[in-house]
């Protein structure tokens, strides 16, 4: 039996703390057994030479190796400075109480380990254990930042702090999708996901270290250009104009998408990625809202047409900036409420987290589109024909909507009404498994990180999807309903990676598309299985 990697090993130099060998990963069932020996392609030699790659087989950040010992020392000093700030009211009032409680009360009972899909699917690789990174941080904190810590380190758990440990810890902060399944099963209430989140903040807010997809191409681009997609307001309007035309062509329904309507009841905030990757989602919302006679609008102001807030995953300041912009835009438009489209992290960022950032007239009511959609269905204003959705459907629960917000049943009540062959995944609801794309993973693609996601972090979701449809013949088209942009991105990638459209006829999409697909009066279906219409 191999020796277990222990928390103190993080600072000991080695080629890599973790390697996934063929056959290590949790096995996939037929017809996917050929993937069971698949491992990550090695990183290119030039990357290994220039970047810190000694954690595992992949890179999320790609931190350059320090050139001199002085540079290393400076980075260690800055890490400790950031760690100190995590425990200060003025710097971290946002999460100080939850952080202290989770840092001080873990009993190391390992109950969390069995709940973590990354740990389980990786073949129980020690570094992916939820408590591993928490314990590393806890030991560093105790040894270097508490009085007498160096004297008592042998007693409370020793660890050395050096650049190797810090670089590995930075990468390791991006091997947890912050799904918080571990926190939901902890008998004490300790939250390893939160500790990971705080670790990411330390690196970003003090050291300026974050994956470029989240920072430069994420929040920075969002605040500068207006959207993390890079679309400026003009481009966003063009995209939506195109969507209007597409919708009419696809469904025969003429839709007129309103912009900047002052005093509208609803400001609808979409993840702008939908406009580019899944325009039918934006179009379907427009069809339903228009058909239901709702008073609504989109905003063409920079930031206002993109609901995303990547700050949620790594930086409280960036989170606050984006949330404040969203709120200012809603206030200027004098809308009665903001409705968040099918984007899970945007739900949580603006509704829950920003709830204690937005005061006074910035505290505009926020509501989930899943709730709004259910109200439309319940109102009886529109007629739906469930026979049009006569194909197997399963529902993915976005962690941010379900476990973090308790919005569990509206989407199910809709599906029970319009999708006669709906079945649940196991487990589901607040016990769901992450799509594997949470906390930014879905948009992080540098180096070979996408492969790591497909092989490791999304593997559990893939197994769940296969299990949900195991009674269906392979030739029957099946629909994975994922009412969240990032989840859709992750599911799109796993279906593509495992060739699941061809092997199992698996397709995916949002909830609103299923509604429009079943809506009376549509001349053509909005949901296609490849080139095949879902109804004729």
């Amino acid at each position, binding site marked *: 039996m191999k020796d277990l990697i222990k928390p103190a090993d993080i600072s000991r130099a080695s080629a890599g703390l973790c390697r996934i060998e063929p056959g290590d990963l949790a096995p996939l069932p037929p017809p996917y057994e050929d993937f069971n020996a698949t491992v990550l392609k090695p990183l290119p030699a030039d990357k290994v030479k220039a970047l810190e790659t000694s954690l595992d087989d992949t890179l999320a950040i790609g931190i350059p190796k320090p050139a001199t010992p002085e540079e290393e020392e400076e980075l260690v000093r800055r890490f400790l400075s950031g760690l100190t700030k995590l425990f200060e009211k003025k710097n971290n009032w946002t999460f*100080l109480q939850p952080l202290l409680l989770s840092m001080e009360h*873990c009993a190391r009972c390992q109950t969390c380990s069995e709940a973590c899909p990354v740990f389980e699917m990786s073949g129980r690789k020690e570094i992916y254990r939820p408590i591993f990174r928490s314990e590393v941080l806890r030991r560093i904190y105790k040894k270097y930042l508490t009085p007498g810590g160096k004297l008592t380190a042998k007693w409370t758990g020793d660890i050395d702090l050096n650049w190797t440990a810090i670089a590995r810890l930075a990468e390791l902060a991006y091997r947890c999708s912050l799904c918080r399944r571990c926190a939901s099963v902890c008998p004490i209430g300790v939250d390893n996901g939160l500790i990971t989140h705080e670790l990411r903040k330390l690196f970003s807010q003090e050291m300026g270290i974050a994956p470029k997809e989240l920072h430069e191409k994420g929040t920075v681009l969002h605040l500068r250009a207006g959207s993390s997609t890079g679309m400026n307001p003009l481009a966003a309007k063009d995209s939506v104009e195109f969507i209007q035309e597409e919708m009419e062509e696809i469904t025969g329904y003429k839709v007129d998408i309103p912009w900047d309507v002052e005093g509208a009841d609803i400001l609808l905030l979409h993840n702008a990625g939908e406009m580019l990757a899944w325009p039918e989602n934006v179009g379907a919302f427009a069809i339903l809202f228009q058909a239901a006679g709702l008073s609504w609008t989109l905003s063409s102001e920079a930031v206002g047409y993109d609901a995303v807030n990547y700050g949620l995953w790594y930086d409280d300041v960036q989170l606050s900036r984006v949330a404040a912009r969203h709120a200012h835009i809603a206030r200027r438009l004098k809308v009665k409420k903001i409705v968040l489209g099918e984007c899970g992290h945007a739900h949580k960022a603006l509704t829950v987290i920003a709830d204690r950032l937005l005061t006074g007239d910035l*505290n505009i009511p926020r509501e989930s589109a899943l*709730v709004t959609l259910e109200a439309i269905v319940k109102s009886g204003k529109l007629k739906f024909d469930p026979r049009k959705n006569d194909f197997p459907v399963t529902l993915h629960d976005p962690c941010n909507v379900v476990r973090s917000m308790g919005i569990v049943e509206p989407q199910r009540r809709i599906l029970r009404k319009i999708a006669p062959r709906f079945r649940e995944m196991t487990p589901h609801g607040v016990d769901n498994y992450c799509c594997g794309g949470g906390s930014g993973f879905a948009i992080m693609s540098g180096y070979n990180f996408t492969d790591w996601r497909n092989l490791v972090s999304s593997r559990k979701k893939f197994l769940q999807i296969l299990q949900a449809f195991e009674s269906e013949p392979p030739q029957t088209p099946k629909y994975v309903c994922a009412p969240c942009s990032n989840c859709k991105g992750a599911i799109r990638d796993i279906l593509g990676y495992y060739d699941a459209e061809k092997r199992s006829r698996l397709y995916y999409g949002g909830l609103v598309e299923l509604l429009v697909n079943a809506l009376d009066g549509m001349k053509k279906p909005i949901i296609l299985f490849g080139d095949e219409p879902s109804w004729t």
Partner: protein
Amino acid sequence: MMGYYIFTYLCLAVFAAAVLWRIYRQLTLPAHVRWEIYPVQHEPAAKAAYGGSYMEGMNWWKDKRRRSTVNEILYMAPEIGLMRGLWKENRSLWWFSFPFHLGLYLMLVVFALLLLSAILLLLGFAEDGAVLSIIKGFTIAAGWIGVIAGAAGSLGMLYRRLADRDLRAYATAADYFNLVFILLFFVCALLTALAADPFFAAARLYILGLLTAGAATPAYAPGQSVPGALTVVLGSLVAAYIPLTHMSHMFMKFFLYHKVKWDDSPLTPGSPLESAVKQNLQYRPTWKAAHIEADGKKTWQDIASSAPKEMK
């Protein structure tokens, strides 16, 4: 004899100070952003059953919030008393952890019952009267079950931590010490009960002595038996020690659940929570990353309302 009393007083003072300090620190921390996790058990039972929230309702901010304290208690009672969460999620550990915790809970119960009977004695209740007899009966039952469960549980926990490689890999010297320390206490208590004090009469007299600084007669002198003396010393030390360690989760769990996991209170205009958040926004952070542009003078509000150079 006074030495024992003084020692116990000191330990209880450390216990009280540590508990109060931990609670005080929590109460004086700034209001944090929401980070709840569902199910939140003060939702009405129908919603709590599947993990639903008030945010499932259309225009939820217009509705009167419905909170169910009953539901919360119905959830927490078996969680605290029977460790339901561990039973559900980590059953193989529950078989060791539950008796360990049961032992500690029952020691608290025994202490409370002994205290109560000592007070009643001082108030003039007859020692062989009905009230004190009933309390004595409960004390004996709780005491015997507690010391046996505690000794077995702490021995089992020590075994699990040594034998299970996953637990061992994360165990520190302090973890082993904690278990050995508590095991020693339970073993001494068990030996005392077996050899010298099966009805916890001497224990009651020791508490009586504690209450009266040894003035009451007859007060128990722990030196009468070695296990008895050790039980008093170790029990006092355990009481002082627990709130200084992560084992304070026994009572800090309240904050972990109520102030984080189930803290779902929305911010309402004009509320004390809004005032607290406004105050928080006046903190002056000093984060050093360039994009933050913090200088120790700008407030959180200034920074959140600004776009740093790279974002313009």
